[in-house]
């Protein structure tokens, strides 16, 4: 698993990358009440706003970590946005994307580096 400075995690599954937010990010956001997900099939550039998370406190943007195509989103979040708090690294995932070159993931932090970042 890889991590971004924006507290997203990236996990490779076959030729796809699954994206979610870290436990640290989910704790900081507070109770999530709504997740606005992109449409499957959307092409995104690195840094595009693709997801909006509404917590009881505020709205936060999730940016596309890589260039590629969103091929699936986690529909379970529509009815149960709290999955982002309950299981951020598992059932609380946001979307799966197809990227041109999986080696682009090498540029992201590993778990040790991410832990050092959040102290």
């Amino acid at each position, binding site marked *: 698993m890889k991590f971004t400075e924006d507290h997203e995690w990236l996990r490779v599954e076959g030729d796809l990358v699954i994206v979610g937010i870290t436990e640290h990010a989910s704790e900081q956001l507070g109770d999530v*009440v709504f997740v*606005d997900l992109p449409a499957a099939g959307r092409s995104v550039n690195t840094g595009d706003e693709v997801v909006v998370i*509404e917590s*009881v406190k505020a709205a936060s943007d999730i940016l596309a970590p890589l260039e590629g195509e969103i091929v699936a989103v986690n529909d379970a979040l*529509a009815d149960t*946005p709290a999955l982002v708090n309950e299981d951020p690294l598992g059932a609380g995932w946001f979307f799966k994307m197809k990227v041109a070159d999986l080696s682009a993931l090498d540029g992201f932090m590993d778990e040790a580096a991410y832990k050092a970042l959040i102290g």
Partner: protein
Amino acid sequence: MADLNRTALHALHLRLGAKMVPFAGYDMPVQYPAGVLKEHLHTRSVAGLFDVGHMGQVLVTAISGRQADAALALERLVPVDLAGLAEGRQRYGFLTNEAGGIIDDLMIANRGDHFLIVVNASRKTEDLAALRAGLPDCDVAEVPGRGLIALQGPGAEAALARLVPDAPEFAFMDVGIRLWQGVELWISRSGYTGEDGFEISVPDAFAEALAERLLEMPEVAPIGLGARDSLRLEAGLCLYGHDIDEETSPVEAGLSWAIQKIRRTGGARAGGFPGAGRILRELAEGPARKRRGLRPEGRAPMREGVEIYAGEEGGAPIGRVTSGGFGPSIEAPMAMAYLPPDLPEGSTVYGDVRGKRLPARIVPMPFRPATFKR
């Protein structure tokens, strides 16, 4: 952060693991480890303890010593019936300005030989200035060294009764002084959550002991400002600086209920407060806009600043959200907005959320019915 004020419960918040934020010049708990959602629901189901020690407590005493003089003097600044407010009773009111806007909203209690006024933390300076300028015949003094604790929820009465045995005998908006371990508690049966509950003024030196004694009880959990906001929003209550301000009139804000008949046109003490011209006219003819409740469809909250439109496309905004968020008890988003007054209840308007116009229904407030002990 070094220059932020601290309430008497500051150290307790840190021990309880609160996340602290600056609020109105104070370092205040926005949430505890339980989180906003659980804190909100706990208050509605049992009881929550809130530190509201940042709020101002002000005593107004007539120089003549006669309470009737203090009441009539205050009525020059506040459009509510204070001469008719019985000793031991409290009333909601507001200081108005010459333009008919609201300087602050307040709780005013008749304590026999003076009035106790509780004001918003963010407005203490303006309130004291308005009171001092408008009341040369009264002594206006901020109470030093007292904290304020709110105990709210269906379990509040039973919890407080363990320390103050006759607490259940307080009716909604009653005020009184009771001793707890020799310490004077100034108690009122009121709050800002839509729940039954109490607000308790306590000397700073005993505030932590009182809070800890209450928190030991099985019903009582500490609640931060985050849940305080979602609770008051569900209850349809205004937050100063957001839903009401120096531009909004009490009539526009839907607070006409707080202006008793005796202060309105035709009443024995009609007018005579700042901005009476606009306020009495709006009472008679209706205001140009009104604070309305909105229930957005779906789950996306419409937060403060969201522009409201009449239609799905085109047109200029017809209003703006002043407070909005997610209601944990109604399990849905809710918002307040100033809108044209003629829009019927149940009609649909559209809020621009990140460039998308999402539908919202105009609904009556409170979003969740209150449960006061009358």
